[in-house]
Each structure stands twice: as structure tokens, then as C-alpha cells.
């Protein structure tokens, strides 16, 4: 221990005690009764003492501020500040009670403050040191001044150079206090890390000397040797203490600075630990956790206070604790991985019982305070999930790729296949992924190989999408048509690293296409296909023949080549219209279309358009038929129909005019024949009477004939609107018209309930009238019975008709005449047997046909005849009109 003392320290101690002995000698030399009255020297000594006291005070405060935990310096500082100030007053006031008052006060109060070093370190004044100092600096001078102003009130301290008992008491208390505090320093020799052993000895002895000198000074007489000895001892002690305070202050500063650095270091370490994105723990070798960072809370749910002191085993599930996940961790850096740490994947246990995957880095380090285990824990939950997702997505891709109905491949830029699905392998006919890897180029059809490989090279070079229709030769020798589509895969800098794509088997499509071409070629009409741009992509032989172009002249050319110039203008718009509403239809409804031959001639065509959805849009398959001949025939027919209509009309007109104009002369003939008969019958001779009768009869028949002809010709000309007519009413009207005839023939007419039909009322009555009249006219031997009925007939088109029948029991006729009876002027009997002019049924037929109906007859000679005719029901007529 002695060696640790510096030369300076030992010299100082020796010197100081030497001076103390010399001073004591001086006291002895000067006899007891000798008095050395040197007030000036005294004043100087006290002033120096006061100064030293303030120095001690200042150093103590400063060191206290640097290390506030050592609170004794605060009390020492306060004591010596007080001492310094009051000694200063003492030095200023050389004599009398006041002087002694200041000195004893200095000793007493400073002693009391010094005693406070016994307080525990933790006790500090609540107010700041700065405030204490300010208060002291104000209070002490005020107290000094106050004392000087009120000297009368100060207790009597000095009695003829001797101390009064009050002074003695105060001195004893003050001195004892100093000795008391000296004892504290003796007991706490290591009270400060800044002072050495010898320095602390000096400190203790200084306190002791101060104490004794103060006590002794109570019994000294002013100016005597003991009086001086006390002053010198005290001054010397102050000097030592000032020295120690200075040493402490300086080493304290150094240590303070060191500690700052350490604190910063610590803070940096803390920051590093706390900001780490993983949990960090410091663990004792027995597994007790001593330190954690805040991440642990988020990861395991434990707060710092909850887990510190607990075993690290609490952070893993029970079942792993026995395995001793930390047991075989090397506690020395010599083992384990190269940097002395071990990495493991484990399962963590959250406070709430949830388990999660973790990665743990274990390393052991030897610190000044022992071997510690450092544990870094990383939560793998997210990583595991990502891995799972990746694994799943890979599995999904594989499942998708393997299940896909098309071949899927992936290859590098050299063309080596890195993946091919089973479909592709089957398609090409190789046996494995390995084979497809190198063989796909060789499997290409020899005719397509160069083209495909060139296209491939271009794709890899430019990054453009790959698309090609080509053939593979399957291992079994068959040809497979495929549509290959691929796109390049790029690195971030854009460099092509490979190609992914699909192979679709289009062999069947190709077959169908070939069939389609055959069908088109074999079609009996011209067929051509145009693409969305209007270019011809396909023609058949018929088109070549029709237009006079060869196939090569047309393929790739615009469709307008085949259209006369005057029609080209609107064609583009119409093509657009078709592509907007593509459905099968004839082209140019309501217009005449013309084709343009290579030689410039035009011919009428009929064009049918069929949209065909193929890749790249809607193409149009057009059929072209030359309708030159048909158009000619159509025109001819039209002309003939027109001629016929006109001729019919003229004929009707003629019949009407003829019959009308015939009436006039006929009337003359008949009238005057009758006049003749009236005036001259029986007046000339028998022959004349007979002649006149023939003439009258002829005129009458001619009148009937002309009437009927007129009716017949009018039938077609009348344009009365058809209305809903109750057929029963019409029959009733007809019967009424025929009243005389019926009663004469004693005929019976049975009429079933009849429907309402659409008809011209007058004409319908005429029909029934003629047919009933006919039945009566051709009656047999028995009285005529006529039955009229109707039933509904559903037509083919869903339109229902009423079928009327008029049945009689007359003479009937052979069925072979069933058509003849309706022909105008055709008669089956002589006029003598059955009068008539052959117009009745012709009129009926004309009326029925004008109503859109049909009339026919069934007859058996001797049994009777049934006439049938059909008429539309009002409902059917309406729906037909709609």
C-alpha cells in the first residue's frame, strides 16, 4: 500500500507534521506568561484561514456536483463556506466580544454542518445546491452585519483576555463536532474513490486537530503561546484539507469524464439492443434472464419486469424443456460455430399459450461481471407463412400446368426446356422432361424447322411474342399440328432470360379447315371469304369461273375488285355495318347487286353473307350466285303476269259493257215481240202466233243470260269490304229470295246453326241462293230436302276455316264431272230437261275464291249432291291481316 503513495503525498505529510511540531516548540520556547501581542499577524492568519476554508468549500461543492451520490461533500462544502465567511468577519474585527463571537460561531456552525456527513448518502436537500448557496451568500453577510450593529446584545465572551464560560461551551461543542465528523472519515476511509489511503489519513487527522485546537482555544488567553498554537494548528489543518479537496476535485473531474464516456457507451449499447428487430436476452449460465429488450414483449408477451429473473425455459413449450434446448449450448466461444454462436430453429411459447416458430442465435460472452449467455430470437412466423404460400403457389402452378388441356413449357434463352407439362410431352411424343429438353427442335417437321427456329431466335433477340402454327413429327410418326405461343421472360434490366408459353394441338382444326376448303371448293355456287379488312382470303373454282379471275389474281386483293365502280362507294360502310351486326343474311336486300368480271362486264348476282368467327375477328363467307338467267325469267314472268292482269281486266270490262249494252236492244226485241203478241195474237194465223212465241221466249232467255253474265263479271270487280256476317242470316235471306221456287217445289231446307264469317254480305247470299236453287232445280222424284251445315277445320298454318256443306237428295251426277260443273256455260243437261245457262255455279266458284276459299262437289247419281266450300272465320281473317 505504501508503494501506491506518491513521493509528493508522503513529503507533504512529513512536512506538515514537522511544521506542527516546530510550531509547538515555538509555543514552549515562549514561556507561558509571555504574550506576543501581534494583532496584525493574527488578522493575516485568520484571513488566510478564511480563504483556505472557502477554497475547501468550493472544491467540495464542485466534486459533489460531479458525483452527487457522495453527499458528504455537500455538507463539508457548506461547513467550510460558513467557516470561511465567519472567519473573515473575525479577521476584520480584531478584538472584543464580537471577534470571539464570530470565531465561536464559525466553529460551532461549521462543526454542526460537518456532523451531517453521518447522514446516509441518499439524503439530499430537496432544493438545489444553487439555491442553497444563494441563500447562504445572502444570509451570512446579513448575520455578520447584524451582529456588528447590535454588539450590545452579544453575550459576554471575553473577560480580561480570558474566555467566558459561554465561549468555552461553544468552543467545546464546535470542536467536538469536528472530531465527530473526523470519526466518520476514519470509519469510511474508502469514502471516496478519488483519494488515496494516506490522503484520507491526512483528512482524518486534520479534522481531529481542528477539533482539539478549537476545544483548547477555549482555555487559552489572548496572545499567549497556546492561543497562537491553536491558530497555527488550525491553519495547518485547513491547508491539508484544501490540498486533499483539490486532489479529490481533480481526480473527480477525470473520473467524471470517464464515467460520461461509459454512460454514452452504455446508452449506445442500449440503443443497439433496443432497436434490434429481434428479441435479445442476456441470460445467466443457469438460465436466469437478466436483461431483455422491449421486442420481447411484442414477441412473447412478457413485460421486462415479468420475465427478468425467470428462467429462459419459460419461453419454450413444456414438451421442449426436457429436451433442454439450451443445455448443450456452449458457454465458451471456443466451441460451436466459427464466431462462437449457434443458430437453431425452435418453437417459441407466447405468454397467451400460442406457439410460433422462432430462430435463436446463442452466444456466450465473458464480461467483467461473469459469463453471460446472449440470446437473439427471431420470429419465423411470417417467414414460414411466406414459405408456405410459395410452396402452395408452386404446387398450384404445377397442378394447373399438369391439368391444363394445352402443353405448357418454360425454357431458357438457348431453347433448353426447363419445364414441360405432361400434355406437352404427350403431344410431341417424347418420353420425359429430359428428352423434351433437347429434343423439341428435332421433333419439328422438317419443312417447318427452319422457319420456327428463325422465329424463335427472333423472339429471344427482340423480346416480341412468339406465335407460330407448325407441325411436330410425333414419336409414332404421325404429324401433329400445333399453335405455339410464347412470351419472353426478362430480367430487371430487360435482358431476355427465357421463354414461357403454350402449345395447343390444332390438328383437328387443321383437318376441319381442310374439309371446309373441300366443301367450299365443291360448292355449286361461287364462294369467297374476306377478312376484316375486306381482303379476299379464299375463293373457289366457281368464283374463278364467274368473274374470270384466277385464284392468285384475287387472294389478298380487296373485295371491291369484284364490285362495279358505281357501287364501290357505299360498300365499305356496309361492310362495317355487317361487322357490327354479323348474322347470316342475304346481301343488299331490296337492291339489285352486280358483279364485275375481269373483262369489265357486269352481271347480276345474289350474295349471301355468313359471319365466321376466326382468330383476328369476324370474317365473312360470301356465296355468290349468277342470277342473270333467273333475272331474265323473273322479268319475263312479271311481264306475263302484268299482261294477264290487264287482259283479265279488259275481259271483265268487256263482259260488263257487252252485257250492259246488250240489254238495250234485247229489251227492244222482247218488248215489241210482246207488244206484237198482245195486239195481234189470234188475229193473223196460227203460224204467226207460234213465231211470236218463239221470239218472245228467245228474248226472255237472252235476258236471263245477260243478267247472269253481268253478275258474273261484276263478281270480280266489286270491292266491298268484308265484314263479319252471320251465315245463318245469309241463308235466311237466300231462302226468302227463293220463296216462290221453294214452295212450288215443296222443298224442305234444314239449316244447322252456322258461324259468323268474313264475307261480302250480298255475295254470300248469292252463293247460298245459287246453291239452294241448284238443289231444287236438279231434284229427283221425291220432294227435295236440302241440309246446310258447317264445321271448323284447322288448317296447316294454324289458321282455322269454316267448311260449309249444302247437301241435297237430287238426281246427282257422275263424279267425273265434278270440275266441269263450275266452268262457265258448261252444262250437264239439256235445256229442255233442266233450264239454265251454266253460269250459276261459275258465279258461286268465283265468289268463294274471291273470299279466299275453295269450292268442290261430291255427287252420286240418283242419291244426291253435296257442295262444299270454305270461308275464313273472323279470327283467322284478323290474324291473317295482322
Amino acid at each position, binding site marked *: 500500500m505504501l508503494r501506491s503513495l506518491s513521493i509528493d503525498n508522503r513529503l507533504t505529510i512529513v512536512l506538515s507534521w514537522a511544521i506542527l511540531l516546530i510550531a509547538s516548540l515555538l509555543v514552549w520556547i515562549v514561556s507561558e506568561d509571555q504574550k506576543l501581542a501581534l494583532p496584525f499577524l493574527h488578522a493575516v492568519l485568520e484571513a488566510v484561514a478564511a480563504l483556505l476554508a472557502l477554497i475547501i468549500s468550493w472544491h467540495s461543492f464542485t466534486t459533489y456536483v460531479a458525483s452527487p451520490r457522495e453527499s458528504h461533500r455537500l455538507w463539508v462544502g457548506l461547513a467550510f463556506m460558513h467557516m470561511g465567511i465567519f472567519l473573515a468577519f473575525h479577521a476584520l474585527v480584531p478584538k472584543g466580544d464580537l471577534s470571539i463571537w464570530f470565531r465561536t460561531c464559525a466553529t460551532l456552525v461549521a462543526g454542526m454542518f460537518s456532523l451531517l456527513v453521518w447522514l446516509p448518502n441518499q439524503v439530499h436537500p430537496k432544493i438545489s445546491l444553487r439555491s442553497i448557496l444563494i441563500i447562504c451568500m445572502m444570509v451570512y453577510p446579513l448575520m455578520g452585519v447584524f451582529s456588528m450593529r447590535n454588539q450590545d446584545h452579544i453575550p459576554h465572551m471575553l473577560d480580561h483576555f480570558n474566555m467566558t464560560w459561554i465561549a468555552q461551551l461553544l468552543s467545546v461543542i464546535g470542536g467536538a463536532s469536528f472530531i465527530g465528523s473526523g470519526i466518520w472519515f476514519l470509519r469510511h476511509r474508502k469514502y471516496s474513490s478519488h483519494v488515496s489511503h494516506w490522503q484520507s489519513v491526512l483528512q482524518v487527522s486534520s479534522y481531529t486537530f481542528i477539533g482539539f485546537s478549537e476545544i483548547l482555544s477555549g482555555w487559552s488567553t489572548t496572545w499567549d503561546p497556546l492561543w497562537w498554537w491553536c491558530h497555527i494548528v488550525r491553519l495547518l489543518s485547513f491547508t491539508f484539507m484544501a490540498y486533499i479537496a483539490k486532489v479529490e476535485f481533480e481526480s473527480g473531474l477525470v473520473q467524471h469524464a470517464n464515467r460520461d464516456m461509459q454512460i454514452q457507451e452504455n446508452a449506445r449499447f442500449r440503443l443497439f439492443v433496443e432497436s434490434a428487430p429481434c428479441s435479445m436476452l442476456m441470460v445467466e449460465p443457469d438460465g436466469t434472464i437478466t436483461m431483455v429488450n422491449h421486442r420481447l414483449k411484442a414477441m412473447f408477451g412478457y413485460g421486462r419486469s415479468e420475465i427478468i429473473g425467470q428462467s429462459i425455459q419459460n419461453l419454450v413449450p413444456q414438451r421442449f424443456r426436457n429436451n433442454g434446448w439450451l443445455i448443450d449450448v456452449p458457454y465458451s466461444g471456443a466451441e460451436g460455430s466459427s464466431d462462437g454462436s449457434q443458430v437453431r430453429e425452435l418453437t417459441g411459447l407466447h405468454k397467451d399459450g400460442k406457439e410460433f416458430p422462432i430462430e435463436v442465435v446463442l452466444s456466450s460472452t465473458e464480461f467483467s461481471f461473469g459469463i453471460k449467455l446472449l440470446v437473439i430470437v427471431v420470429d419465423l412466423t411470417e417467414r414460414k407463412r411466406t414459405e408456405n404460400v410459395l410452396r402452395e403457389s408452386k404446387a398450384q402452378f404445377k397442378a394447373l400446368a399438369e391439368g391444363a388441356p394445352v402443353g405448357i413449357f418454360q425454357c431458357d434463352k438457348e431453347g433448353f426446356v426447363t419445364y414441360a407439362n405432361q400434355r406437352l410431352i404427350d403431344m410431341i411424343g417424347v418420353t420425359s422432361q429430359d428428352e423434351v429438353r433437347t429434343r423439341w427442335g428435332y421433333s419439328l417437321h422438317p419443312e417447318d424447322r427452319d422457319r420456327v427456329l428463325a422465329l424463335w431466335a427472333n423472339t429471344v433477340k427482340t423480346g416480341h411474342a412468339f406465335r407460330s402454327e407448325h407441325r411436330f413429327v410425333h414419336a409414332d410418326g404421325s404429324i401433329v399440328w400445333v399453335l405455339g405461343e410464347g412470351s419472353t421472360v426478362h430480367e430487371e434490366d430487360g435482358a431476355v432470360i427465357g421463354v414461357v408459353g403454350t402449345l395447343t394441338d390444332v390438328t383437328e382444326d387443321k383437318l376441319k379447315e381442310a374439309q371446309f376448303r373441300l366443301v367450299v371448293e365443291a360448292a355449286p355456287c361461287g364462294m369467297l371469304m374476306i377478312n376484316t379488312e375486306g381482303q379476299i382470303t379464299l375463293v373457289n373454282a366457281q368464283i374463278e369461273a364467274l368473274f374470270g379471275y384466277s385464284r392468285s389474281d384475287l387472294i389478298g386483293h380487296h373485295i371491291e375488285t369484284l364490285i362495279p365502280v358505281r357501287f364501290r362507294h357505299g360498300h365499305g360502310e356496309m361492310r362495317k355495318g355487317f361487322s357490327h351486326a354479323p348474322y347470316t343474311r342475304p346481301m343488299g336486300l331490296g337492291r339489285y347487286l352486280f358483279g364485275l368480271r375481269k373483262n369489265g362486264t357486269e352481271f347480276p348476282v345474289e350474295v349471301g353473307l355468313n359471319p365466321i368467327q376466326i382468330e383476328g375477328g369476324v370474317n365473312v363467307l360470301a356465296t355468290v350466285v349468277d342470277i342473270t338467267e333467273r333475272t331474265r325469267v323473273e322479268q319475263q314472268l312479271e311481264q306475263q303476269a302484268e299482261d294477264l292482269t290487264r287482259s283479265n281486266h279488259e275481259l271483265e270490262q268487256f263482259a260488263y259493257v257487252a252485257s*250492259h249494252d246488250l*240489254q*238495250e236492244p*234485247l*229489251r*227492244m226485241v*222482247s*218488248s*215489241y215481240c*210482246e*207488244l206484237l203478241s*198482245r195486239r195481234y195474237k189470234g188475229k193473223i194465223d196460227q203460224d204467226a202466233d207460234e213465231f211470236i212465241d218463239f221470239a218472245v221466249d228467245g228474248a226472255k232467255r237472252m*235476258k236471263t243470260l245477260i243478267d247472269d253474265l253481268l253478275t258474273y263479271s261484276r263478281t270480280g270487280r266489286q270491292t266491298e269490304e268484308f265484314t263479319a256476317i252471320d251465315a245463318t242470316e245469309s241463308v235466311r235471306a237466300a231462302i226468302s229470295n227463293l220463296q216462290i221456287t221453294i214452295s212450288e217445289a215443296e222443298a224442305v231446307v234444314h239449316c244447322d246453326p252456322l258461324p259468323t264469317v268474313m264475307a261480302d254480305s250480298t255475295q254470300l247470299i248469292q252463293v247460298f241462293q245459287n246453291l239452294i236453287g241448284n238443289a231444287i232445280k236438279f231434284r229427283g222424284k221425291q220432294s227435295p230436302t236440302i241440309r246446310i251445315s258447317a264445321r271448323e277445320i284447322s288448317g296447316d298454318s294454324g289458321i282455322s276455316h269454316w267448311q260449309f256443306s249444302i247437301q241435297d237428295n237430287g238426281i246427282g251426277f257422275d263424279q267425273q264431272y265434278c270440275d266441269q260443273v263450275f266452268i262457265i256455260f258448261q252444262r250437264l243437261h239439256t235445256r229442255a230437261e233442266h233450264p239454265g245457262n251454266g253460269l250459276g255455279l261459275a258465279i258461286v266458284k268465283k265468289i268463294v275464291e274471291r273470299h279466299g276459299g275453295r269450292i268442290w262437289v261430291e255427287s252420286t247419281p240418283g242419291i244426291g249432291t253435296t257442295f262444299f266450300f270454305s270461308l275464313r272465320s273472323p279470327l283467322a281473317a284478323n290474324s291473317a291481316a295482322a
Partner: protein
Amino acid sequence: MSHETARTIEILLVEDNFGDVRLTKEALSEAKSTTRLHITHDGVAALEFLKKEGPYGESPQPDLVLLDLNLPKKSGFEVLTQMKQDPILRTIPVIILTSSNAETDVRKCYEHHANAYITKPVDLEQYFGSLKHIDEFWLSTVRLLSHPRQ
């Protein structure tokens, strides 16, 4: 029946057919009324007679006109129309006596204010009957204007 027995009724027959003229004369000769029959053979002459123009300056105003439709020069329709537009002539009853029984003709005549329309019966008896009916109704039953304006 008894009130105009003394007066001779003036009738204008417009008819181009001489056969009909004769038949009409024959028929009227059997009539009870005293009539005087004036005859014109075409429409133009008929209007001249009615308006006392040309050769008909002295002709009387007829009490009744029997008008055929089918006439030379001017048809019976035109005669009828012009008569019915004339404030004086429109008071004379006009009976259309024609061989046409076309519905359109009948309608047209009545639309032009004809007073009666009779289709000439082909049968002589009926013809005579028709004229007998005219005599009985128009010449005997109906009261005509007593003093037609001159």
C-alpha cells in the same frame, strides 16, 4: 183525284231510243190523266227545251221530266245537274227512266236530287205497269205546282 182534272199535264221525255219513245207513248195513251208528251232526243236539246232556247222558244214549261241517262251529246246526269242548279228548273220533278240498274248510277242520281229512279223493265207488261204507276202517282196523286213560272 178530282182536283186537276181539267188541266193537261206537260211531260218532257228525254230519250234517244225511238223504240222506248214509242213504248212510252203507248203506255201513256192508256193513262187516265190528260197529258201532252214533248220529246227531245239528246241532252243539249232537252236543256234548250227547258230554257226555251233555239227552236223551243214557244215550248211550255213541263210539269214533269222523264230523263234517260244514256244520251247523246250531253248525258242525263249533266241535264239533271244543270236543272237542279237552275233556280227555276229545279222545281220540276225529274224521274230517271233508264235501262241501267247499277247501284252507282242510282246513288249518283239521287245525290243530284233526282225525284225518282226507275229501271226500265225488260218485260213489256212490267214496263207498262211502271208507267201506269207514274200516271197514278205523279200525275194523279201528287200535287204539282199549279202555275209554273214562265
